[in-house]
């Protein structure tokens, strides 16, 4: 098999497993429950809380932040599920042993989940507009769309890191759950990051979503692209950094596996 053909084959198989992981609920009902009911409930909780604490005129602030956070569901859990499926189906060693460009293979795991993340955010925005009064009349819609894509990419980068951790740590999903909900506290989703203690803000800015949420808020207010380019660039870099860290971990594990160290992980 030629090199390109084998790379395509690996990519296709990886994408297939992402697809399977995505539809792990195996039913339309399950998908609705997970993709609509849960996000609605989460948004409703924080919007009502926010309205109670700061006044009903601020409902849209909370709706916007939470709508964006929804992408992390696909970005983090979706990627972990993909890796878990590869492990379950026993194709992980094949993947590691393939001649394909490993970086591409590694990154390709996130593809479907990025798309799924974008869908989640769109659903979130629909709810934010329909139920919670988010007003996009003055918004820079194309810029907002870019923010959504960027945030989906960056959270998937974090997900790739967790995917690699998931290779050695059986309970990586537990850590992933914690990070997913911590995003609600650390990333300016429900209140400005400036209210957090200084040391904690450092953590906030090293996570995806933080800059993206800020950029999206500005886009909703009608800001031009130039005003948030720095934020978006930073967001992409953070996502990329996490993805590369994940790849470094993946490559290290692969080396150990080759030397007979971590076979049990598979």
């Amino acid at each position, binding site marked *: 098999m030629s090199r390109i053909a084998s790379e395509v084959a690996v990519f296709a198989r990886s994408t297939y497993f992402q697809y399977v992981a995505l539809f792990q609920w195996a039913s339309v009902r399950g998908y609705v429950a997970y993709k609509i009911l849960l996000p609605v409930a989460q948004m409703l909780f924080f919007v009502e809380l926010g309205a109670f604490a700061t006044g009903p005129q601020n409902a849209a602030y909370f709706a916007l932040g939470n709508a964006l956070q929804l992408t992390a569901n696909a970005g983090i859990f979706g990627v972990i599920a993909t890796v878990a499926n590869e492990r379950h189906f026993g194709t992980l060693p094949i993947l590691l042993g393939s001649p394909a460009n490993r970086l591409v293979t590694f990154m390709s795991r996130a593809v479907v989940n990025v798309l799924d993340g974008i869908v989640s955010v769109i659903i979130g925005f629909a709810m934010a507009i329909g139920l919670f009064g988010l007003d996009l009349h003055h918004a820079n819609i194309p810029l907002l769309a870019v923010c959504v894509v960027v945030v989906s990419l960056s959270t998937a980068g974090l997900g790739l890191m967790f995917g690699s951790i998931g290779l050695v740590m059986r309970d990586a999903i537990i850590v992933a759950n*914690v990070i997913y*909900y911590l995003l609600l506290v650390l990333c300016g989703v429900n*209140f400005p990051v400036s209210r957090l203690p200084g040391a904690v803000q450092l953590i906030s800015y090293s996570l995806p979503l933080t800059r993206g949420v800020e950029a999206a808020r500005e886009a909703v207010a009608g800001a031009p692209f130039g005003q948030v380019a720095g934020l978006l660039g930073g967001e992409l870099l953070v996502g990329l950094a996490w993805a590369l860290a994940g790849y470094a971990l993946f490559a290290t594990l692969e080396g150990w596996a080759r030397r007979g160290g971590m076979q049990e992980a598979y």
Partner: protein
Amino acid sequence: MRSLVRAALSSLRLTLRTRVVSGWMYLNWLVFPLIFAAAGLFVLSTPGGSSSRLVYGVLGGGLIGYWSVAYIDGGNGIQDERWQGTLEQVFATPTPLWVIILGKVAGAILFGLLSFLPTAALAYFGFHAVLPQLDPSRFVISLGVLTFTFFCIAITLTPLFALWRWAFSMVNGFEIAVYVLCGFMFPVAILAPWAQGVAGVLAPTWAVRALYASTVAEGPHDLVAWWLAAVGLSLLYLCGAYFLYALVERRARVSGQLAWA
């Protein structure tokens, strides 16, 4: 009768022992409540807001943790046995399934109560939020009534989750919906009228209302009526549970699917 009580206590002990070493358990009673408490406290302490709202931050995280444990851990009693591969064995004993579940839910509830400790500590040390007008006896009774409502709901949900897998897939959505509808972190009165109607048929709504009322001096409070409403609704759920358990037994014996995880 004594042997049934013994079986329930045995189930309670087993639950406590397996939960103590379970990572997920710590997530449910410690980590997630702390995260939600932190989020809530930051939002509730937004500059310009009333300080009386912080009461919801003191108890809200604990309520979230308590509910999560009772609902997810307690409600998964049958599923848990199925995942462990022991469902057939316990089903075929002379002890009815509901007795075993009773013990499991009681064990989960005990863990859930722990949620109040770290979240109240976070509220106090992180945000200087306290409950200055707490009426201890009313608070304890309200907490007892709330415990009873969670207990009855978990007992009722257990067969529901076992019978219909789609119900289980709605788990996380319903869990958070209850935070909203039962007024865990903000009063139900701010919700839309139709939502308040739905909240009214949920037993914990009344117990939580009584709980918060026991922490402030100003009325009007009709705690006794609220306690009775909570208890009454819970007993109704138990009536439903009776039929659900009979249905689980019947379905299990017809389909033979107990062993399938």
